[in-house]
């Protein structure tokens, strides 16, 4: 039915009303759903470890610590200084391993290699391992992301 001066029929009006209503509800639902399925977890800015647990690493060897849900690798150089890396390969995210006999980091997934300072030297890895920064304060070993004060 259409009134004389009306632009649309009663059916069109009701269809538009229902359509708009369903559309609005959908739109209101999309946002929380998207928020829900994309968690906002971020990797930590810093982790604090007990220095005593890591003091005994021998030169040219390494120990793993938890960097959020990734492994971090703490490695002692020959001169006794410590270095820390995020222990995941820059190629496709596999966990890497320090091999003291070869003095290299190794990624088994596609045969990627990094030298003892984390620089990519062979295989697919496109970048060096990510470095983390170490400071020792009292009993704490503090490991920080680049650029975090």
């Amino acid at each position: 039915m259409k009134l004389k001066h009306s632009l649309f029929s009663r059916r069109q009006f009701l269809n538009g009303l229902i359509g708009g209503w369903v559309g609005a509800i959908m739109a209101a639902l999309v946002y929380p759903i998207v928020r829900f399925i994309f968690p906002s977890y971020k990797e930590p800015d810093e982790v604090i470890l007990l220095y005593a647990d890591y003091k005994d690493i021998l030169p040219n060897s390494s120990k793993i610590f938890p960097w959020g849900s990734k492994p971090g690798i703490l490695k002692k150089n020959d001169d006794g200084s410590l270095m820390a890396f995020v222990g995941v390969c820059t190629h496709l995210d596999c966990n890497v391993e320090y091999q003291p006999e070869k003095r290299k980091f190794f990624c088994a997934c596609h045969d990627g290699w990094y030298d003892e300072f984390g620089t990519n030297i062979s295989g697919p890895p496109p970048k060096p391992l990510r470095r983390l920064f170490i400071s020792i304060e009292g009993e704490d070993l503090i490991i920080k992301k680049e650029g975090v004060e």
Partner: protein
Amino acid sequence: MSWLDERFGLSSVTQFLKNKLIPMHKHTIWSYTGSAILLFFVIQVLTGFILIFYYRPILEEANASVARIMTEVPLGWILRSVHSWSATFMIALLFVHLLSIWINKAYRRPRELTWMTGVMLFICSLLFGFTGYLLPWDDLSFSATKVGTDIPRAIPIVGEWVTKLLRGGEDVTGDTLTRFFGIHVCILPIFLLVLLAVHVYLIQKLGMSIPLESEKSKKKLKEIPFWPNFVYREAVLWLILFGVCLTVAIFFPPSLEKAADLMAPAPEGIKPEWYFLFLFQTLKIFPARLLFISGETAAVLLIFLGIVLFFFLPVIDNKPEERKGKIVRASAYLFILYALILTVWSLL
């Protein structure tokens, strides 16, 4: 029967199936693949349902619960083994199914949508395999999933989000496991069943296609009724395939490595399931940089383009008898050759 028929009107369905005719020609054997895929899907659903009774989709317990299925639960090892092997059979048959349709051009007008739903069913099944592979949560499947879910990152703009969506965070963690479980046992089955309903409806509605040659020569083909003649023939094949699947499942049960440890280095010899090997190798042979984008991005975009072309094949192949049609057919053979070579290469 007549009591039910009065209420459901089933006789129109059975009458339809009796009247439905299957044309007999030299490509008819390929029509057996469809129902065989269905057979293995049904096996997946049944074995999957039973596995859920013991499987635990959380980080601390997943691996141990699969170990328990393998060692303690009565006949649990056979169930898991059949679930794992039947997945392989289902996907192998899907490859044959789609390739035979591609080569015989059975997707010709008006069957474009049947093909497109078929491709979506195929992708669904690959996702079933990908998510299922992580569930035993051993160090091989964990590292393979790290790699697999990191690949979308190479797609410009949306890639980062796809990876996060799949992983439920930055990294593969217990959340990923739980998420994959939900996708594997709830979301994908619903999707697949809906697609399957449309696919099967279209097949019934449009009838079986006739090969190009016979369509041209207008020669009348011999036909047999779908029910019971064709179904009996299919049933023979189901029995054989089921027997073969059960036999390999008994003699070659899937292994279970030690539980994944988020902090442990990746083990050697990680590889995806066999049906992803050619894609895996494709990624591997791309150079690190190609002009101004990374090799990975190029490879991922190329694979994506391939999938889109594959999906729209019936639209692209709109003049099946001309030169273009020949090229489309030749590309099917090229694809087979490419996939075989890269698969073998990845195993060397």
